C-alpha cells in the first residue's frame, strides 16, 4: 500500500472523494441561495427543506408511480420548482417592501412547517432509495475504487453548476438577471417584467435544490432532516464565497467540501468545525467574502 504524508493513499483519496461529493451538494445548494439572495434579497432558509422535498419527490415518484431515477432527476426539479413559484407568489412576494428580517423569519418558518409535515407523515428514520442499475458498482481508478454513483454525483453537479454559471454570465437572460440584481427598478423601467423574473428566479433556485435532493437520495437515506443537516454548512459556504456571488458559491462549495474531507484525514476531531473556522478567518480578512463585491 502506498503512502502520502504518512497516510495510506486509498484512505486519502477516499476522503477526498467524500469531500468532493459533499462539496457538490454545498455548491448546488449555495448556488441556488446565491441566485435567490442576489435578486430577491432574501436569505432563503427554506432551501434545505426544499432540497429534502426534491429527494422525497423522487422517492414518491418511484413508490407511487413507478417513475425511476432518471425521469425524477428531470421531474422533481420541475415539480418542486413549481411549488417554489407558488410560495413566492403567495407568501414571499408580500415581504419585499419590508425589512430583510421578515423574509428570514418567513422562510425559516416555512422550513419548520415543511419538515414537520414530512416527519409526521414519514417518520424520521429514513426511507431507502436505490442507486439506478446503470450506476451501480465501482470503477478501479488505479489508485482507488470509486463507486460509480458517487463519481456521477460529482460530474452531474459540476455540469449543472457550470451551465448555471454560463447562463448567468454569458447570455442575455443572464445579463437581465445581473442587471436586476444591481438595480431592479431601473430594469423594470426599461420594460422588463421584473416581478415575473423574480418569481421564475426563485423557482429556478428551488429547482436547483430539488435537483441536489434527487442526487442525494441514493447516498443519504431520504428523510425529513436531510436538509437541515446540510443547510447550516451551506450558509457558511455562502458567507465565505460572498453573499450573492455565483462563481464564489460554486468554487467555495467544492473547495470547502475538499477541505472538510482532508481535515477528516489529518485531524478528524476538527472536521465538523473546520468550515466555521474558515468562515471566521475569511470574515476577519475579507468581510465581503472571497468573491464578494464591495
Amino acid at each position, binding site marked *: 500500500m502506498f503512502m502520502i504524508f504518512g497516510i495510506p493513499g486509498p484512505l486519502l483519496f477516499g476522503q477526498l472523494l467524500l469531500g468532493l461529493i459533499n462539496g457538490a451538494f454545498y455548491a448546488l445548494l449555495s448556488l441556488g441561495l446565491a441566485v435567490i439572495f442576489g435578486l430577491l434579497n432574501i436569505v432563503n432558509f427554506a432551501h434545505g427543506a426544499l432540497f429534502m422535498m426534491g429527494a422525497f419527490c423522487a422517492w414518491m415518484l418511484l413508490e407511487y408511480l413507478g417513475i425511476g431515477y432518471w425521469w425524477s432527476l428531470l421531474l422533481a426539479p420541475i415539480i418542486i420548482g413549481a411549488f417554489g413559484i407558488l410560495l413566492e407568489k403567495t407568501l414571499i412576494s408580500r415581504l419585499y417592501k419590508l425589512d430583510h428580517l421578515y423574509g428570514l423569519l418567513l422562510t425559516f418558518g416555512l422550513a419548520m412547517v415543511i419538515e414537520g409535515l414530512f416527519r409526521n407523515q414519514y417518520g424520521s428514520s429514513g426511507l431507502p432509495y436505490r442507486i439506478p442499475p446503470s450506476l451501480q458498482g465501482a470503477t478501479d481508478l488505479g489508485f482507488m475504487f470509486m463507486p460509480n454513483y458517487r463519481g456521477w454525483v460529482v460530474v452531474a453537479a459540476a455540469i449543472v453548476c457550470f451551465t448555471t454559471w454560463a447562463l448567468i454570465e454569458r447570455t*442575455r437572460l443572464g*445579463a*437581465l438577471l*445581473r*442587471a436586476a*440584481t*444591481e*438595480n431592479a*427598478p*431601473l*430594469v*423594470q*423601467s*426599461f*420594460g*422588463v*417584467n*421584473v*416581478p415575473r423574473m423574480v418569481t421564475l428566479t426563485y423557482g429556478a433556485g428551488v429547482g436547483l435544490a430539488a435537483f441536489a435532493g434527487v442526487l442525494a437520495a441514493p447516498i443519504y437515506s431520504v428523510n425529513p432532516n436531510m436538509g437541515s443537516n446540510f443547510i447550516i454548512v451551506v450558509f457558511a459556504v455562502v458567507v465565505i464565497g460572498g453573499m450573492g456571488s455565483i462563481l464564489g458559491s460554486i468554487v467555495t462549495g467544492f473547495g470547502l467540501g475538499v477541505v472538510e474531507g482532508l481535515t477528516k484525514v489529518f485531524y478528524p476531531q476538527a472536521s465538523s468545525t473546520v468550515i466555521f473556522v474558515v468562515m471566521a478567518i475569511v470574515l476577519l480578512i475579507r468581510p465581503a467574502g472571497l468573491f464578494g*463585491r464591495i
Partner: protein
Amino acid sequence: MREMLAVSGLNAWYGESHILHGVDFRIDEGEVVTLLGRNGAGKTTTMKSIMGLVPRRAGSIRFSGTETIGLRPDRIARLGIGFCPEERGIFASLDVTENLMLPPVIAPGGLSIDEIHELFPNLKERARSPGTKLSGGEQQMLAIARILRTGARLLLLDEPTEGLAPVIVQQIGRTIREIKKRGFTVLLVEQNFQFAATVADRHYVMEHGRIIDMIANADLAASTDRLHAYLGV
C-alpha cells in the same frame, strides 16, 4: 401638433413627504421640452412619477392618450417611454455592449447599432469594458444610447450634462438635436439653461413641486432676469 404627454394635477409622495403638489404640463410630438428649477424642486421626482417609479402618486399622466397613473413601470415603458436617470444607472456587472443591449426593443423605429456607434464612437471601441469602467461622459453617452435603440418615442433625460466637460456637453447637445431631427420627443431636466437654450423648444420652470412658469425658447433672451430670479443664478 399632436399631444404626446399630458401631466395634470400630479402629486407624489416619498413615504410621508409630499413632494409634488399638482404638477401640470404638456409635451407635443417632436418637441424638446425642458424642466428647469433649483435643486430639490421636484424635477427628478416628476420624471420618476412619469415612469411609475415613485411609490405613491396621484393625478393624471396621459401618454398618447393612455392614462398611465396606475400602471407598473414596465407597462409604462412598453407604451413607448425611455428613461435615462440622473445617476445614469450603468450596470457594473455588465460590459458596455450588454449595457447597450439590455433594454428590450419595444417598437420599431429605434436607432440601429451602427447608427449608435456613429453617434458615439467610444462605445464601439470600449465594447467589452465593464460599464462602470467608462469615464463619466462615456457612461452618460451609454445611458442615452441604450434608450435610443428601443423604439421608445418619448425620451426622459435627467440632467445628462451634469458634471461633464464642455466638449462632452457639446456632444450631448448635438445628439439631442440629432434625435429631435429624427422625430423623437424629449423631456430634458437641466440646471444649465444656457445649454437648455441650445436644444429646446420650450422650458417649464419648477419650484417647490409645482410648475410656476413656461417660456418659449424664442422668448428666453427677453426673460433672462425672470429666469435668474427663479434659478437663483
